[in-house]
């Protein structure tokens, strides 16, 4: 596939028809086979030093997230403190990759995290449904960027995608990318609404073709959110996209990843699908909130030999 894609890529977004022909020409995904491959990788047994390394890497990949109607600056400041020092009792514990908040909370996060190197990500584009006029969605992005967000998590127009208006989805992503300026754009596919792996593969390519820096599974507001097989399909897409274009795109599963064991399964998936180039916070993130504490508890178990309890990790 790679050779044919590379030669025709500049042309594929020229029209709806060309885009459709391209996306529908991608190899299909057999649901059962993809699920079995993901499940098989889930049986990898990661021990001792590898596990310690994997837990720290997973912590460094967390986009620590709060996306609630009840979010307040106080809540966000607490989250940022946790992001900086996930385990206050252990200075060797690394910080997370980013905090992820609503646009109204960006300023607070930026202020709290200034100079830390931790990124501030903002959801935008009328998250989570995206059901607002494009101008409103773009204004949302611009506001978040203006407030200091250096990463934007947009949602794609699933309605347009599912009704086959690929060019419209493409143009909107490109417009958002333009509105981002230097901020990194993560494109949320909301795979739970796309329903099939074939759609996930097509949406992944569409997002990458339109300029997305990351493809992200889910808003966290729709079930199912991230799953191993969905992430597998997206990792195959970024792998193939780089082979075709030379450009590397990141992947972010978000929602539903709650345990260290799950996180390590995702890292195995990355390692054996896209490869070690993606095993870095620049290229793989976890969108999560409760995951971090389980990673910390497992980290504690590994370093002390004792099982930890919830009172020994911080609440926020």
């Amino acid at each position, binding site marked *: 596939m790679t050779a044919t894609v590379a030669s025709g890529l500049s042309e594929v977004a020229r029209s709806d028809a060309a885009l459709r022909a391209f996306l529908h020409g991608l190899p299909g995904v*057999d*649901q*059962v*086979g993809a*699920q079995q491959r993901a499940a098989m990788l889930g049986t990898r047994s990661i021990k001792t030093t590898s596990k310690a390394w994997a837990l720290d890497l997973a912590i460094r990949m967390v986009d620590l997230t709060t996306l609630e109607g009840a979010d307040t600056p106080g809540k966000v400041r607490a989250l940022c403190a946790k992001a900086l020092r996930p385990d206050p009792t252990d200075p060797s514990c690394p910080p997370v990759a980013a905090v992820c908040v609503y646009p109204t909370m960006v300023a607070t996060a930026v202020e709290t995290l200034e100079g830390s190197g931790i990124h501030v990500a903002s959801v935008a584009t009328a998250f989570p449904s995206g059901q607002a006029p494009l101008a409103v969605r773009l204004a949302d992005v611009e506001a978040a960027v203006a407030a200091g967000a250096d990463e934007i998590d947009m949602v794609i127009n699933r309605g347009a995608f599912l009704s086959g208006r690929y060019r419209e989805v493409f143009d909107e992503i490109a417009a958002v990318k333009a509105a981002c300026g230097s901020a990194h754009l993560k494109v949320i596919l909301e795979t739970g609404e796309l*329903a*099939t792996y074939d759609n996930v593969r097509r949406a992944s390519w569409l997002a990458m073709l339109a300029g997305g820096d990351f493809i992200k599974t889910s808003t966290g507001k729709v079930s199912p959110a991230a799953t191993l097989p969905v992430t597998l399909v997206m990792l195959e897409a970024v792998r193939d996209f780089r082979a075709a274009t030379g450009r590397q795109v990141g992947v972010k599963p978000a929602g539903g990843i709650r345990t260290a064991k799950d996180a390590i399964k995702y890292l195995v998936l990355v390692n054996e699908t896209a490869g070690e180039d993606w095993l870095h916070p620049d290229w793989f993130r976890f969108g999560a909130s409760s995951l971090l504490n389980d990673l910390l508890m497992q980290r504690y178990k590994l370093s002390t030999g004792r099982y930890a309890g919830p009172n020994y990790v911080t609440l926020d």
Partner: protein
Amino acid sequence: MPTEQESPAATTEPTVRLAVRKTYKLFIGGAFPRSESGRSYPVHTATGDFMANAALASRKDARDAVRAARAAFGTWSAATAYNRGQILYRVAEMLEGRHAQFTAEVAAATGDRDAAAAEVDAAIDRWVWYAGWADKIAQVHGAANPVAGPYFNLSTPEPTGVVAVVAPPESPLLGLVSVVAPAIVSGNTAVVVASEDRPLPAVTLAEVLATSDLPDGVVNVLTGRVAEIAPWLASHMDVDAIDLTGVTDAGLAVDLETAAAENLKRVLRPAPASSDWAADPDVQRMLALIETKTVWHPKGI
């Protein structure tokens, strides 16, 4: 056939029409050739009178018959079951139309006219019985298998391929039909060695087959010595199964089964000498000459 009686009272010799005899030949690939060897052998009635010369098939005739059967396999096995069923039924129709001829021929061979008529009746009915199986064997012997996973899984019977058949010696028509029909109904093609001493009904049946829309080569009939022809069929690497039903020499049967092992032919061992061909058949002969193919496919969206 026996000659006509002349009238003893005639003063002048009236012109009595001389019967036109049939030349009994082989049936290979839809044609009726003589043996390539040019040989024949005399066939006698039950009472020992000369009836006809039958072709004495050679190993090369057997080879040609296998080639014809293999060539026919693709089309016949791919025909719809409905189509195969109709053709087998057509054979019954054609046979019914020649009832008197077959009765006379079987009677001449066995010496019992009443039994011969009953044998022809039964042979016709047997074609009808097997004709009906064509589109049922897959339903009765196939299976939808409830595997423990998200898979469609279906087992279906398929024909084994080219089947060599040694027809029962004692029952020249019913016995023959009883081994040929179950072989071909599922899509196999056959090379049949007819009853050695009573081969003529087999050749006449070939004429019926040739006019029943049965594709050329689906059934090929050899007449001759079982001990001469069968070993070539048993050792032939392009024959998939061998039915030894009509082999009466136990030593020969062992040799044939041993030779058949070289390409792992499916083997039907000789039938007991007491076989009652008039008894109701069961599905065993069909099942012995089919393969079960199981196809898996994931179920996903």
